[in-house]
């Protein structure tokens, strides 16, 4: 969409049939679910990637290829598996998680973890061996060496987080299945995200509304990218 279209869109945004707070609440749910899932994924993936990157063990190539395969894991399948896990009949049934944001976070965690792990692993592996050796030679512990490598690899890690976030926030299959696309009667989203809202509007033939929500989603992704890139630029301080 070109910049010239923005002035035309602005009045359209004002007289849309959205109820008050509707768009704000679905943006909130989208961000809440995806950011939480990506944060948890990052906490899990980065140490795992560093551990795999630093270690030498038989089958390392196999582990890498498993992680890479995970990047292409279809989101609807993840949604189904999480649904079975959290459904009243499933192993986590007693926690009553079906049709909740927590279930959506679980499925997005599963979706975001492989790309974040794989790209971080590539970034960590790409850091010159000499950097690690120098850190150790200067009397650093293994942890110090790891931190130095992480600092060197920060652009790669930022890319990894963005890839994970992009996958999570733009995915519609699993959050629809485990979340149920719910709003309350007064139009405040409980588990409706931008993507499932777009799906709903398209189902109802309201393509203009769907397009505007799509524009909001793209703007959101761009903003998050800008913030993360900025964060990566200012460096990892430790």
């Amino acid at each position, binding site marked *: 969409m070109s910049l010239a279209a923005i002035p035309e869109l602005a009045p359209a945004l004002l007289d849309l049939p959205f109820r008050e707070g509707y768009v704000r*609440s679905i943006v909130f749910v989208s961000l*809440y679910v995806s950011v*939480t899932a990506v944060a*948890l994924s990052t906490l*899990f993936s980065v140490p795992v990637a560093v551990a795999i990157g630093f270690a030498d063990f038989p089958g390392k190539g196999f582990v890498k290829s498993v992680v890479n395969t995970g990047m292409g894991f279809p989101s609807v399948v993840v949604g189904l598996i999480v649904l079975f*896990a959290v*459904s*009243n*009949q499933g*192993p*986590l*049934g*007693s*926690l*009553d*998680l*079906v*049709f*909740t*944001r*927590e279930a959506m*976070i*679980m499925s997005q*965690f599963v979706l975001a973890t492989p790309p974040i792990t794989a790209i971080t692993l590539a970034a960590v592996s790409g850091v010159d061996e000499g950097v690690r050796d120098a850190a150790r030679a200067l009397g650093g512990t293994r942890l110090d060496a790891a931190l130095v490598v992480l600092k060197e690899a920060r652009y790669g890690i930022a890319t990894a987080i963005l890839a994970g976030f992009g996958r999570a926030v733009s995915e519609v299959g699993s959050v629809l299945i485990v979340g*149920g*696309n*719910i*709003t*309350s*009667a*007064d*139009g*405040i989203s*409980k*588990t409706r995200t931008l993507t499932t809202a777009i799906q*709903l509007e*398209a*189902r*109802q*033939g*309201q393509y203009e509304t769907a397009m505007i929500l799509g524009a909001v989603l793209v703007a959101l992704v761009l903003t998050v990218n800008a913030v993360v890139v900025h964060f990566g630029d200012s460096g990892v301080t430790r």
Partner: protein
Amino acid sequence: MTIHRRRFVAALGAGAVASTAGCARLGLGGESGAGSDDRPAVAGEELTLTTTTSTYDTGLLDEIHTDFEDLYGVTVDAVAQGTGAALESARNGDADAVMVHARGLEDEFLRNGYGVNRRDLMFNDFVIVGPESDPAGIRGTGSATDALAAIAEAGETFVSRGDNSGTHAKELTLWEAAGTEPGGDWYQETGTGMGEALNAATQQGAYTLSDRGTFISQRSEIDLAILVQGPIEGGPEILANPYGVMAANPGVHDGVNYDLAMAYIGWITSPGVQESISGYEVNGEQLFFPEAVSEDPNFGQYVPEGWSSDSADE
């Protein structure tokens, strides 16, 4: 995998706390006017209602649910699925109440013990819609099955929901009654909701079967005409579209919120709400006709069709 899961449970605990806090904040902002002391015991609980896209997409539920939420201080989580999926969610214990429109599937659900306290709720009808030009020449045909047979005969494109929804179930019944096995290039299963199927039919100049409610509420977005009317406009009775509501059986799944489900069923079948349903209009047309309130007894609504105590298994 098990390791992941443990990490998850820990993380989820934190997540649940955070999200509950968020809900409480939203709740306070949204319903500041309501008192909290004299609320019913179910206040603050959530009712998970699985329903059909054809009910949800008309906007009826959003319109009337606010009243229920205010009355009981609860929230209704309406999940729009096909009738088949809505019943399946309840079968798995993931829904407290279901509102669907496929008597055959509802009866199976009841017979298997998953649902209790079924009530007839409301009805509208199905219509066969298609392009204004009507290439198969079915306009004004008095019989739905003849119309479908004519479409099949002419090989004109027909869009099927193909999603095990109530509308899909009705369509398959009609094909069977017409003695035609649908299939071939002209028969397209979209596997989507009613609105998407109507869009698909518009795009391709195709015929489809729609419930009147969704058709009316989307008429301005689509370019199709009603070619065979349902019983509301004097069409054949086979196109009737009755909606039923029932509670998930708490004897099968002890996690379901049976109290609230019954409160909901009592509320939605009450005279006042039935009146709101008949007063709900889109584009100046009534979408649903209430049928829960009646002077005469209708015992058939509580049990699977054709059930009698004589025929029941010992």
